[in-house]
């Protein structure tokens, strides 16, 4: 597979840099600064140091004995991104971007957040590096994810409530972009997933690719080989791309991205942009989108606030279009069941986002032979989802 994206940030027909002129110079500067950092060993050293000493990497690749036994099929490993500082894979990326911001001399950072995980991870690195921090968050999400809002405030970040649209992630990202348009000279925008205009999808992917690299090394040590199947949930796609990327050229490794089917793919209440969307342009890139026939973006829905986004990273769109990975979807109900299953079988409470990947594993693992290896990216922990689960009356 050739190295993508191309110099303009295109992955085949996807990706690109569909941004307002005001932002273009910042995007070009970012691209340049990132390029330099990539070639600078001291950046890699710094990044490594914080990942190891601060975030707690490498995260374990845990053989889930009781889950494997219960499903009676493939051998199941969980990549424990839930053990990262702040509780999800998001810190891998925010550390990278904040280090870059520091190199670029920016003292202010902004970010959008849905579930609040990226907001917390951003507020965290802002505190760590002494930067001013504003987090844009939909009012509806502020209500749903109160504990994370509180964590951001404790960390010294300002949480800016976004009232426009449906007051969820998409609107928060719109508002962050608007704010950035007005503050681009001294402010670094830390985007939380493999979306946004180039170079974000590439950069976030690279920052997250540590997940797959570790899996490769760990599994080869334990099993002497690559996994047969990789599984990860897909919101914007950063944990999934982080999981997949190291294996992209190893054709024998099958990859499944799990989208949120919400109340069902046959309803309008889901977030499955690949399974239920069409090609379009949003937030700076061309990708699969949930939209009406006039190109107006639809509201996404998922019980998992972190998956509640109507787009998907352009590289996933490319992987889907070229069939390098398969994209499937599971419903709210299936995710809630998987949430409970993993909690009770392994003592690990997954984020509702990650529970989507678990739910799909519950479908396919039993159909796989016992000598097959299935690796699931457990992107985050589920403490934040208590309120949501209470509301489902699942207990």
């Amino acid at each position, binding site marked *: 597979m050739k190295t993508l994206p191309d110099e303009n940030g295109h992955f085949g027909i996807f990706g690109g840099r569909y941004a307002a002129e005001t932002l273009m110079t910042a995007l070009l500067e970012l691209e340049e600064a990132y390029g330099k950092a990539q070639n600078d060993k001291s950046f890699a050293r710094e990044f490594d140091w914080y990942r190891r000493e601060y975030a707690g990497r490498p995260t374990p690749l845990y053989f889930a004995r009781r889950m494997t036994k219960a499903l009676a099929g493939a051998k199941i490993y969980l990549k424990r991104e839930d053990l990262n500082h702040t509780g999800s894979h998001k810190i891998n990326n925010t550390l990278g971007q904040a280090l870059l911001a520091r190199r670029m001399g920016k003292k202010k950072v902004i970010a959008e957040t849905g579930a609040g995980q990226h907001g917390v991870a951003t507020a965290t690195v802002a505190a760590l590096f002494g930067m001013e921090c504003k987090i844009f968050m939909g009012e509806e999400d502020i209500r749903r994810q109160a504990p994370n809002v509180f964590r951001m405030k404790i960390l010294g970040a300002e949480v800016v409530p976004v009232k426009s649209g449906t007051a969820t992630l998409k609107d928060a990202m719109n508002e962050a972009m608007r704010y950035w348009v007005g503050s681009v000279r001294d402010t670094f925008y830390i985007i939380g997933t493999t979306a946004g205009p180039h170079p974000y999808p590439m950069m976030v992917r690279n920052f997250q690719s540590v997940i797959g690299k570790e899996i490769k090394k760990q599994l080869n040590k334990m099993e002497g080989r690559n996994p047969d199947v990789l599984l990860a949930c897909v919101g914007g796609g950063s944990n999934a791309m982080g999981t997949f990327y190291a294996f992209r050229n190893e054709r024998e490794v099958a990859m499944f991205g799990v989208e949120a089917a919400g109340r069902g793919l046959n309803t309008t209440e889901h977030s499955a942009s690949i399974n239920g969307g069409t090609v379009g342009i949003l*937030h700076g890139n061309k990708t699969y989108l949930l939209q009406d026939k006039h190109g107006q973006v639809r509201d996404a829905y998922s019980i998992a606030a972190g998956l509640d986004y109507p787009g998907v990273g352009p590289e996933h769109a490319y992987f889907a279009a070229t069939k390098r990975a398969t994209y499937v979807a599971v419903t709210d109900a299936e995710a809630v069941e998987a949430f409970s299953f993993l909690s009770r079988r392994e003592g690990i409470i997954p984020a509702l986002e990650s529970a989507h990947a678990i739910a799909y594993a519950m479908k396919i693992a039993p159909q796989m032979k016992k000598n097959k290896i299935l690796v699931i990216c457990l992107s985050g922990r589920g403490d934040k989802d208590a309120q949501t689960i209470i509301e489902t009356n699942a207990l």
Partner: protein
Amino acid sequence: MGRIGERFESLGAKNEKTLIVYLTAGDPSLTVTKELIFGLEKAGVDILEIGVPFSDPTADGPVIQAASQRALKTGTTLQGVLDLVADIRQSSQIPILLFGYFNPIFTYGVGKFAKAAQKAGVDGVLVVDLPQEEAQELRIHTDAVGLDFISLVAPTTGKIRLKNIVRNATGFLYYISITGATGTAAPKIDDIARDVSKIRKLTKMPIVVGFGISNAAQAKEIAALADGIVIGSAIVKLIDENRNSSELINIISDYTREIKEALALQRYIVK
């Protein structure tokens, strides 16, 4: 040369500044938009910038965001806007520019759009999220049918980049007078003066200034530095405030006329 170029030329000949007014199509309804347009034309507006509403207008401030939302709620579509233009063209030759985001155009189909726009009587397009890096995707079609493709220049646009933009520009150059979304700050005269003169050194093409101009005094002051100005959020806000008034058209016309007159006076002022 199309209607836009002609308008700049004729006004330039009179040493008069161009007044461009933006309004969101379909806010409060396409019928009222049509009436507003005729009113604006009578009030002396030189070029109309018709906003095509989009669900996620990331370069717009709260005023235009809200207008887009209202327009979408009443069912405004790109096709509807094209039909509106065609309708206006029955009785008016005012230059018309469509202003919007790429996704509705992309979804309509870029080739189909260019042809339909040209046929409806559109003169140019300004797509906020199509910087030169991505513009070819649409331009190969709009250029083919002779639509102007208006380029934006921002205060943050660098030197080399500016040269490229200027080289590929058609119609006029749209200088964004603030670093911010539409209508979110007041422009700073000194910065505009400096930047416009930089652009001026590179091209003879008309330069207009927009984003954040809200009254006649500002308009006059800024217009003195360029070939024209754009009034956007200020008009949209006025429309919204008077949506239920029987005087809506008059109020908008009066407001516009005042600005146009302020600009017209300028030709008597030695630059």
